[in-house]
Every structure is written in structure tokens, then in C-alpha cells.
């Protein structure tokens, strides 16, 4: 039984000029941690807003918890938790007041579901008398998650929860999600960070409103057919343009301190031919090695298709 189902959802803005979501279909199973991965403007937020009944799709159907997003929106609103990308709690209310407010709104109390949020809330409890607007970014995020969880939702929608949060807090946040998953909560999370994709059980890679691929992160990287090399040399920016001009190279992308390249023909001599070419161009301390493809490599490949 799937908790979230989308069938051919389309959404346009500005009277059909801007296509935000283009014929998207997927489903998320009960208790699954599902990631929507894509750059800004890929249509992730639009999908979230359709699923949380804030936005009406132009065509297609969707259901959450078995309830239709259009006809049974009232039921959905009682059972889902939504954490928008932008911090949207009352900045002039204190941490405790915000939490209490959202508990009341869902006709419950903090005490009733304290167990669920305990581990997260305990970290911000020392600041419970502080106004939400005065919290640090990571704390705000934790508070927002608490507020989204206070009514023990069956499905949790997290729209870019880690954008603008430091690396340590990001890691903590994903740990929290894993614990929530164990509570049986279905989690839909979106992120522009490819490195977070591997933390999800299943991911959908999105670009320009379309889903390019849906699978487990492992399977997606497995589908990367070519052999991928990482290359490094003295002058990296020149190296990039030289590699792109070279006929041996199929693709070349900057990737941290290395450039990731694939060859047109995966032959042994391609590599040595390239090395000779680079030496002739006066590059020194050239380093080349085979690497395992990451989600980002897959994403770039799919994007260029």
C-alpha cells in the first residue's frame, strides 16, 4: 500500500507559460524515506504544495494516505506534517508557544505526542522561552520539525529542510529523519544537495519539472554505464577547457578538486593517448584514476541526454 501516489500531475504558472511540473507520476510506500533531488526550479516545491493541498494541479490526480488531494483535502490536512522550505513559524512567539499553538490547532497537546519529538525537542528545550525569530538556523529547523511532528502525522513533507544549514546540523537532521522513519512515518524530502541523495531509500531525480529517474540511489549509480575517471593536474581551469576540446573525451565536468571525465571509447589506449596529449600541453603532476560514479555524475549525465 502506497502512502503517496501521483498520477500524471501537471502544473503551470502564469496562465500556462511556465511549466513547473510536467506529467509527474510516482508513488511512495508506507514508511519509506523518499527524496526528490533536483536543482532550484526543478518543480520540487510545486509537487510538495500539490500534495499538501496548498496548490491545485492543472491535470492529473494525487492521493495522500488514500485520500484524494482535491476532494478529501480536509482529511489530508489532519494527517500530514509539512515543513516549508522557508522558516514559517511565528517569529514573535516563543519556542514553547509555537509548539503549543500547533498542537492545539491539531486538537492535541504537547504531552500526548511528546515521545515522538522528545529527542529533537530536548535539544531546543533550554531555549523554550526564547522567541522563535531569535533562534539560530539549525535550531529553527529543529523547532519547525517539532511543530510539523506534534500531531504525529502519518506522512511528513520536508521541503528543502537542510538548505542553509551547516554540515554538522545537516548530518544531525538526517539522523533524526532515520529515527522518525523507524516510527513508521512516511517521509518525503526534497533537497538540491546530491550528496544527501544517498541517505534516502529511494530518490527521484528531477529537472525542469520532469522526473528523469526514480530508483534507489544504488541502482541509479549502477546504471551509469561508462567508466568514470577523475583527473587532476597543475592548471585546473585550463585543463577543463582543454579536455572539453579533446576528441577523446565524451564528457568532462568539474568536481571538487578533480575533473570527472568519460572517454568516447573505453579503450586502454585512450587513457595513455590523453596523458601524452596533456604532457605535450605542458601540464605537470597529472593524476588520473578510475572512480565510482556518484548521484551527481548520474544527474549530470541524465541532464545532458
Amino acid at each position, binding site marked *: 500500500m502506497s502512502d503517496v501516489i501521483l498520477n500524471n500531475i501537471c502544473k503551470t504558472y502564469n496562465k500556462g507559460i511556465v511549466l513547473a511540473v510536467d506529467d509527474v507520476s510516482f508513488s511512495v510506500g508506507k514508511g519509506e524515506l523518499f527524496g526528490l533531488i533536483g536543482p532550484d526550479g526543478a518543480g520540487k516545491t510545486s509537487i510538495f504544495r500539490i500534495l499538501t493541498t496548498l496548490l491545485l494541479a492543472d491535470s492529473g490526480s494525487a492521493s495522500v494516505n488514500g485520500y484524494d488531494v482535491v476532494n478529501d483535502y480536509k482529511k489530508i*490536512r489532519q494527517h500530514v506534517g*509539512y515543513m516549508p522550505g*522557508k522558516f514559517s513559524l511565528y517569529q514573535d512567539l516563543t519556542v514553547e508557544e509555537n509548539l503549543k499553538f500547533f498542537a492545539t490547532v491539531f*486538537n492535541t497537546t504537547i504531552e500526548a505526542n511528546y515521545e515522538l519529538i522528545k529527542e529533537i525537542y530536548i535539544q531546543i528545550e533550554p531555549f523554550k522561552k526564547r522567541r522563535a525569530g531569535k533562534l539560530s538556523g539549525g535550531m529553527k529547523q529543529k523547532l519547525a520539525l517539532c511543530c510539523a511532528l506534534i500531531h504525529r502525522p502519518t506522512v511528513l513533507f520536508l521541503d528543502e529542510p537542510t538548505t542553509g544549514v551547516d554540515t554538522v546540523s545537516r548530518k544531525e537532521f538526517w539522523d533524526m529523519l532515520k529515527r522518525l522513519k523507524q516510527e513508521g512515518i512516511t517521509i518525503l524530502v526534497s533537497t538540491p544537495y546530491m550528496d544527501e541523495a544517498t541517505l534516502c531509500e529511494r530518490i527521484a531525480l528531477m529537472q525542469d519539472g520532469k522526473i528523469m529517474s526514480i530508483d534507489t540511489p544504488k541502482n541509479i549509480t549502477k546504471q551509469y554505464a561508462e567508466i568514470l575517471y577523475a583527473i587532476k593536474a597543475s592548471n585546473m581551469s585550463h585543463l577543463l577547457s582543454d579536455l572539453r576540446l579533446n576528441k577523446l573525451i565524451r564528457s568532462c565536468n568539474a568536481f571538487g578538486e578533480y575533473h570527472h571525465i568519460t572517454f568516447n571509447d573505453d579503450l586502454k589506449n585512450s587513457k595513455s593517448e590523453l596523458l601524452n596529449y596533456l604532457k605535450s600541453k605542458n601540464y605537470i603532476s597529472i593524476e588520473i584514476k578510475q572512480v565510482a560514479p556518484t548521484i551527481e555524475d548520474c544527474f549530470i549525465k541524465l541532464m545532458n541526454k
Partner: protein
Amino acid sequence: MRILRFLLQKEFKQIFRNKSLLPMIFLMPIIQLIVMPLAADYEVKNINLSIVDHDHSTYSQKLTSKIISSGYFILSDYGNSFKNSLQQVEQDKSDLILEIPQGFEKNIVRENKQKLFIAVNAINGTKAGLGGAYINNIIFNFNNDLRNDWIQSMRYNQIPTIEIVSSNWFNTFLNYTFFMVPGILVVLVTMVCIYMCSLNIVKEKEIGTIEQINVTPIKKFHFILGKLIPFWVIGVFIFSVGLFVVGRLVYGIIPVGNAGLVYAFLSLYLIAMLGLGLLISTYSETQQQAMSVAFFFMMVFLLMSGLFTSIDSMPEWAKIIANCNPVTYFIEVMRMVVLKGSNFSDIKNHFIIMTGFAVLFNSWAILNYKKTS
């Protein structure tokens, strides 16, 4: 009900924590109510008068001192050249020129008539109109005094005249503050309601909290009531302070009619105005937009409400606008009940019309307020 109570609690907490909004709501109306009526004074005083006297006779002296002693005029120049006086007007040193011709006294005595010349700087129409009227009146009185002097000596040749004696009702001493303060109070209450209500809701949109609220089971009407009730309470509070504290202590205005009737109308009026604020908020995405739209409506409401200028003297098209303006009706009701002591049957129509406004604005706003886009 529990949810509504919580929404109200939250709303009041937010209002009382807002350190810049709070003085705006409570202090501004009181200060404005004390300052604004003083500025919106209809009586024109301190008119600079320049007299060109070609006669230099007893009568011309008498006329001059009579004019100056009226208290409305300040003698800025006394000379015998009209050209010089005109220059004074051009330099804005005087507003009005009175030219007394040569042989003024002689001609009155011998030929029983004389003409005076008055030139008024009409850039400020009100000042010119009233200044001209005042000086005409003074000269008319001067003329009567002269006549009385003469008639006494010619007892058998009495000229029949009609003397008009008027008595001012409802505002015996023509105290303009009695007329202005109730009207200004209406405008202030309106301002606080429209601005605060629309800005408050748009702020939730801007910060994004409305998104969070929209995905909860809060009902539309709970949310709207949660927004309207606090500002309704604030509106009633400001009105009470304005009427009973500032109005009574500063201006000595004591409602002649039933204060309960005023409150009944205020309750209805606030519902209508908060509905308008809500309506503005449903059409605006940012506080800036809401502010601009609210400001536009405020300006029209203010100038076309009969607060400063009489609606009866407006052109037909303007009368139509004034009649579509809810502020007009409340100002009328205030003046009728507070000054005249009108009762319910006198303002029945106002109640009916205001109910119409309340229903129109609120139902429009509620229809336009969507939780889903």
C-alpha cells in the same frame, strides 16, 4: 471554540509584543485627536489687511479701527497708494486691500452714498471668501451705525428695514471642534482597522506562516474570526478612549444622544471596515501592496466623507462617491447622535446601509480568501 480561543490568544500576544505596532495602535489616535482638530480650524483669523486711505477723514479712521478691532484682521500696511499695497499682496505680506476713495466722508454726508473697493488675494479660496465676507459684514455694520446716527436726527423719515436675528441650534457657539472631533474620531478608528487588519493578514502571507496554517485543519472561518475579533476589540477601545477621554476632557464633548446607539452603530461599522481590510489582504501578496491599496481607499474615504467639506456642495458625481463611502454614514451618525441627540428612528437608514456594506465586504472577502491557490 478551543481553536478560536487559541487563535485569539496568539493574536493578542503578537499584537502586545510588537513594540512598534503597539504605540501606533494606542498612542497615535489619541495624539492625532488632540492635534488634528486644532489644525482643521474653519475660522479664518489673522487676515493681513492693507488699507489704502485716500481720504484721511474721521469716518475713514472710524472704519479702519472698527475693522481692526473685530479681531479677524491684522493691519499690515496703511498707506495711500494702491500700487504699493498690490505689491504687498504680491509679496504675500497682505491678503486683502481695502481702498477708501478720496472724499469718502464728504460724499456720505452730502450725497448719501459712497463706494469702497476691496481686492482679495484669492489663491486660498477659503481665506479669500471668508475674509471678503467678514469685511463686508463689518462695513455693513458700519453703514448701519451711520444710518442710526442720521435717522435719530430725522425722526419722521424712518426707513423700513428687516433685521435678521439667528439662533444656532445644536452647536450654540459655533464651536468647530464639536463638529470636527466626532468626525476625526471616525477616521482614526477606520484607519487603525483597515491598516492593521489588512497588514496583519498579509504579514502572515509574507512570512509564510499562512502556509503552515493552511495545512492544518483550522477552518477558514475560524482563522478569519481569529483575525477580525482582536481588531474589532481594539477599534472599540480606541473609540471609547477618543470619545470619553479625549472628547470629554479635552474638548468637553458630551454626547447629547444615547451613547449606546453610537456603540451599536460602531459595532456594525467595525465589522464592515474589517471586512474591507480582509478584502484588501486577500488581493495583496506583500505588506507594501496592502499598504498602498489601503492608503488609496483611506484618502478617498477621508476626502469624500463630508468630514472637511460639505457633501451637499459637491458635484453630482462626487455625491455618488460620497454615498458609496461607509465613512460618510458613520460621520453623519456621530454628528447626529452626539450633537443633535438623534434616536434610532432617525438613523435607521444608516443602519440598513451599513449592514449592506458589512455583508458585501465580508462575503466578498471570504469568497476570495482561499486556502488553496
